[in-house]
């Protein structure tokens, strides 16, 4: 128990007990979905999985600082926890991984891990890494041109931080002080290549100095620290003071993907100690110390998460498969000769304000 005369840290950040328990629950749910999908992949139900395990603390914390339904997000392939915090449900995520016809991200057209959801202001993601960061900057530019109070957050890994588009995006955002937050989730490995072979100088955050914006390093195991940094970045963006680059030092608990075996390139002792850096028990310990989380509350949350993931799996699995008759649809937004026809599945031009 925290001593009664010490104000818990989360309250200083403007977070209620419900908030931090909500964050904790979001992390648990994202992990549960992730683990469930690995099982489904091993069982042959899902073709491929690229994991967010170990990134949940930073992702939930950053997304928690954004306004759902107002702010935008351009995700990357590990963005499961932040996409869920932005509004995607466990069922949405599993449905997308099963490539069902009514998958909100792509209707079964994209591989697993390509998050997107027009109803949630989550921009559809492709596979070439780093492209989404320019989309985030473009959304921020759109909001800035129109005078809208909208902040855009985007995520990418430290390997991707080397792509030219990232630098083009940060420079442009810095020039015009666009309301955008760049989140680099640095887990130390770009598939197999370690940080010292990817990032000269070892710091992605340091690069911010060249683009006229603050660059912060946060510990991905310190969830409230991540939240505080994102909150400040969000406020800066809303005040018109421009972008922020946050480098969250996170741990990749799994192999790069279900097609990878990290034992081939990570030291056995390193792999053995990964679990000690898991952000979920770290956050649980902090919440326990603050007197917010008790055994009883923890058990309740975990039971809810278990029920939700089981329900979500069942519902997702029961959804219809895509049909080939539909594969030629929605190539263009309007019917054109020689091209696809369009029947937008959203009632309006989704994604537009």
């Amino acid at each position, binding site marked *: 128990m925290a001593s009664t005369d010490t104000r818990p840290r989360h309250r200083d950040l403007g977070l209620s007990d419900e908030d931090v328990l909500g964050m904790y629950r979001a992390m648990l749910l994202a992990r549960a979905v992730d683990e469930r999908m690995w099982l489904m992949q091993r069982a042959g139900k899902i073709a491929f999985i690229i994991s967010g395990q170990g990134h949940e603390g930073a992702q939930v914390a950053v997304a928690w600082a954004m306004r759902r339904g107002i702010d935008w997000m351009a995700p990357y392939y590990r963005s499961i926890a932040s996409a869920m915090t932005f509004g995607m449900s466990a069922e949405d995520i599993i449905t997308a991984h099963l490539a069902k016809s009514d998958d909100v991200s792509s209707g079964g057209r994209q591989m697993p891990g390509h998050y997107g959801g027009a109803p949630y202001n989550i921009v559809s993601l492709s596979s070439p890494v780093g*492209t989404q960061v320019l989309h985030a900057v473009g959304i921020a530019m759109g909001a800035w041109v129109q005078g809208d109070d909208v902040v855009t957050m985007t995520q990418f890994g430290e390997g991707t931080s080397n792509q*030219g588009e990232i630098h083009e995006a940060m420079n*442009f955002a810095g020039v015009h002080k666009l309301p955008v937050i760049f989140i680099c989730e640095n887990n130390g490995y770009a598939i197999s290549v370690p940080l010292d072979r990817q990032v000269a100088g070892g710091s992605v955050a340091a690069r911010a100095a060249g683009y006229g914006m603050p660059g912060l390093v946060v510990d991905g195991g310190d969830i409230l620290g991540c939240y505080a940094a994102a909150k400040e970045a969000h406020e800066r963006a809303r005040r018109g003071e421009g972008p922020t680059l946050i480098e969250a030092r996170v741990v990749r608990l799994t192999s790069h993907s279900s097609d990878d075996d990290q034992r081939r390139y990570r030291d056995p002792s390193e792999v053995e100690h990964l679990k000690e850096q898991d952000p979920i028990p770290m956050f649980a310990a902090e919440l326990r110390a603050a007197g917010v989380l008790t055994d009883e509350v923890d058990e309740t949350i975990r039971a809810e998460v278990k029920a939700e993931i089981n329900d979500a799996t069942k519902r997702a699995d029961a959804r219809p498969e895509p049909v080939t008759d539909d594969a030629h649809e929605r190539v263009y937004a309007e019917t054109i000769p020689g091209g696809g026809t369009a029947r937008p599945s959203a009632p309006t031009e989704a994604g537009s304000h």
Partner: protein
Amino acid sequence: MAERNILEAIREAMDEEMERDERVMVLGEDVGKKGGVFGATEGLWAKYGDKRVLDTPLTEGMIAGAAMGAAVYGLRPIAEMQFADFVYPAFNQIVSEISRIHYRSNGTFTAPMVIRMPYGGGVHGALYHSQSNETYFTSTVGLKVVAPGTPADAKGLLKAAIRDPDPVMFFEHKKTYRLFKAEVPDGDTVVPIGSASVPREGRHLSIFCYGYMRTCALEAAETLAREDGVEAEVVDLRSLRPLDTETILASVAKTGKALVVHEANRFGGFGAEIAAEIGERAFEHLDGPVTRLAGPEVPGVPFHHTLEDWFMLNPARIVDAARRLAAY
């Protein structure tokens, strides 16, 4: 009706669309105070301010990618590539992202945006200021591609492109910018994307062209009529994707002979698509081989004027090719 050159028509289209719809914005290199290196955006910065007419850093990838973000958000961006030759850093954004976001999101996102690109040779621009690179984009499903050849078409098609719900690559042949003035309809006249025009009717052979080649083909047709008594029908495709195949096939059904003319090189060029369409769908009407007249198989337009003249198609070359086909 007012007389305009193509550059003025393009400027007027942007001005009217920006006036009509505050979601329309322009971004690119030097498009602001300077008004663009060719002057296409002249006056817009002063009228609409430096957010809606935005000078960007020299980063074509950023121009395309940020334009897509803004389009997804709900704006109607017009991105200017200073030269079509410099679009390649943006290729990833155009091909991986802009063309695919609608399909890959199952129709839930759209990228209503225009990428304007000055292209083509004959202006002493050499290898890197003269390219006709339209086939990279016509072969990319998800994009629309237009290439007007008159002031009225330039204005009407640009207005259509800005209003279109899909991404449109807008090719402006830079040699035509100030080549001639012609009447542009007053008021809000839109030329629909996907329709060809037939600026000259004829019965002996069809010449299919677009952009600057329209001017050359019409001049060639005059010569053929005057000197040979050959009546060439000139079909200006205007839109390359979607392609008005009905007009193409109807023309071939009438003339029985098809000559496709474009400045880009021949191998795998856009003419191959036209020739294949005709071969597959108008075979029974053909009275001669479908013929392509195209730029030479060299990597770019060489600089020295004699070399550039060697590269460029012109009315005389079209006349030669048409004579051979007419005599077949």
